[in-house]
């Protein structure tokens, strides 16, 4: 465990909690009894073979799908039934397995969209008064934008500054004004992370951030993720296909197969788990390598 996390030991209330979450599509059980807790400073891994339900788990956590059973709590609030953007406002941000940038927007604008959306809105409001105040804030915002008030201009400058900072952190400053679709693949992945950071999350969910990268790029990325966790005081949950890599950086790993959690624990424990190896690598691997690696 890193020093930063230890320093925060006492303030480690759970930021994201999944409790017995299940989801079904028709007859197919995509996720069964999934539980997970992310605290500030965590760097957790979620692994499993193709179709194991990793991305589904992400989608349930972020509100894209509604769980059939179980409960998801973000920052202590139950978020079942809330919309993704509301959950995002509670401090949960994500990237996508198949990159989903705003392709025609510049790199800078991609990040600014996220920076803004956090906005001045009442973050957790569900009641009538919160809705009303949100509406009022909203109208004031539109008015400011239409009238180009000094406040709006200042805010716009501030947003640009924040976004530029995030681009810099992700090493994308030189791409500031390029359309997202014209960026090379690896940079698109990084831009997605920058965008997610723009929403000022407390928990960051990364869906296969290293997909398509070569070994060296992957290593760099993992270093970067650690750094982000520490600098931005995040809890991070990573889906990754590459076992070796995950094992390298995650402190705690959950393994899914066919929607079920088949193993969890520290990398060393998971690595030794026979069920994991079976699921992940198939029986043939076991035979040829003669048991646990």
């Amino acid at each position, binding site marked *: 465990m890193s020093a930063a996390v230890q320093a925060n030991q006492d303030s480690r209330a759970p930021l994201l909690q999944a409790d017995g979450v299940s989801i079904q599509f028709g007859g197919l059980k995509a996720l069964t009894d999934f539980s997970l807790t992310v605290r500030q400073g965590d760097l957790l891994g979620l692994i499993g073979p193709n179709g194991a339900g990793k991305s589904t788990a992400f989608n349930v956590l*972020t509100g*894209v799908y509604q769980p059939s059973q179980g409960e998801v709590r973000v920052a202590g609030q139950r978020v079942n039934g809330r*919309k*993704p*953007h509301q959950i*995002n*406002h509670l401090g949960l*941000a*994500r990237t*996508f397995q198949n990159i*989903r*940038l*705003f*392709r*025609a*927007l*510049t790199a*800078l*604008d991609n990040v*600014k*969209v*996220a920076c*803004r*959306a*956090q*906005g001045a809105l009442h973050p957790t409001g569900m009641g009538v008064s919160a809705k009303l105040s949100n509406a009022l804030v*909203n109208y004031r*915002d*539109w008015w400011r*934008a*239409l*009238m*180009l*008030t*000094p406040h*709006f*201009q200042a*805010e*716009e*400058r501030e*947003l*640009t500054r924040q976004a530029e900072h995030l681009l810099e952190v992700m090493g994308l*400053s030189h791409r*500031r*004004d*390029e*359309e997202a679709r*014209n960026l090379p693949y690896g940079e698109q992945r990084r831009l997605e992370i920058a*965008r*997610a950071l*723009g*929403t000022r999350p407390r928990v960051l969910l990364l869906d296969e951030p290293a997909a398509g990268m070569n070994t060296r790029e992957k290593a760099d990325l993992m270093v970067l993720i650690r750094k982000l966790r520490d600098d931005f005081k995040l809890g991070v949950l990573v889906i990754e296909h590459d076992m070796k890599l995950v094992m390298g950086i995650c402190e705690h790993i959950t393994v899914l197969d066919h929607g079920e959690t088949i193993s969890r624990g520290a990398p060393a424990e998971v690595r030794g788990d026979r069920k994991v190896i079976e699921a992940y690598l198939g029986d043939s691997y076991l035979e040829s390598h003669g048991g646990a690696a």
Partner: protein
Amino acid sequence: METPALPVPEARSAIPPALRGILPVLVALPVLALFQWVTNESPFAVYLLSVMGVNIILAVSLNIVNGMTGQFSIGHAGFMAVGAYISGVMSLNLKEVALSFLPVAASDQVLFTLALLVGGLAAAACGFLVGLPSLRLRGDYLAIVTLGFGEIIRVVVQNTDAFGRALGLSGIPQYSSPYMIYFWVFLTVLVARRIAGSSHGRSLWAIREDEVAAEAMGVDTTGYKVRSFVISSFFAGIAGGLFAHFVPIINPGSFTFVKSMEIVVMVVLGGLGSTTGAIVAAIFLTLLPEGLRSAFNLLGTESTLAQKVDQIRMPIYGLLLVVLMLSRPQGLFGTRELWDVLPRWIPRRRRGLS
């Protein structure tokens, strides 16, 4: 194509920030007065400019929904009808009323503005109603709902005595002047551009690009979609009100599905998302039929062909659309604006790291 799709607010400017918001309006007013004065003497120019202005408002406002937000609305004529009828009825009823503390002409314009706003707000309310299903519907399904809404409005008007049924409303006072119309054109364009340049605009673009990602990044997609419908239909209603006050007769036949399609054509032809593109396309498509008319008139007034040719305009219009789309599928400007595609000798805005 290294041009950014969105305008970057200028970092430095000689104009004090407090003035920037209102300055375009201050500049526009005298320019429009000049404009009014110059055009005043040719009723046909005035009429054509009025039609053009209304079409520009319609195209630019539809572009907010279709171009910026990426929703597909094909019922814009319905919102226009709401604005036209509501403000028309109001003006008819207020025809004899004058505000005592103002000269008659000024009083008329005040009441006219009031009627326009009421019409616009009524249209905006309808836009809200139509926007609501967009919470659930996507793409072509939303499109057909907007189309259906437009048709329903038309049928309702046709069966309502207060709206003059099939004959429509006639005798609406002719309050629309190029000054008024182009002031609204200006406001519409200003609003569209300022939205595009603000974080709200970026949220709309984000929805157009990827709704799921936008939602995940904290953009209230349904809220923004409804709001874009409301704003767009407000201006469509204003356009309808202006239209009603210069034709000055409206009947349900003017607000059919075909009219809606004409507006969609302007937006797509100009390039989805490009405000200036919508303007140029609206101007072009308004002048095109009249241009064809002038061309045919050259054939002489006596020939039978010249008398028949007026009928040929519409098929030619259709074929021209096909040819235009085939030659420029992304529209005239794509998502870019006029100044992004102008030749080099016109100084461009600075961009990039500065």
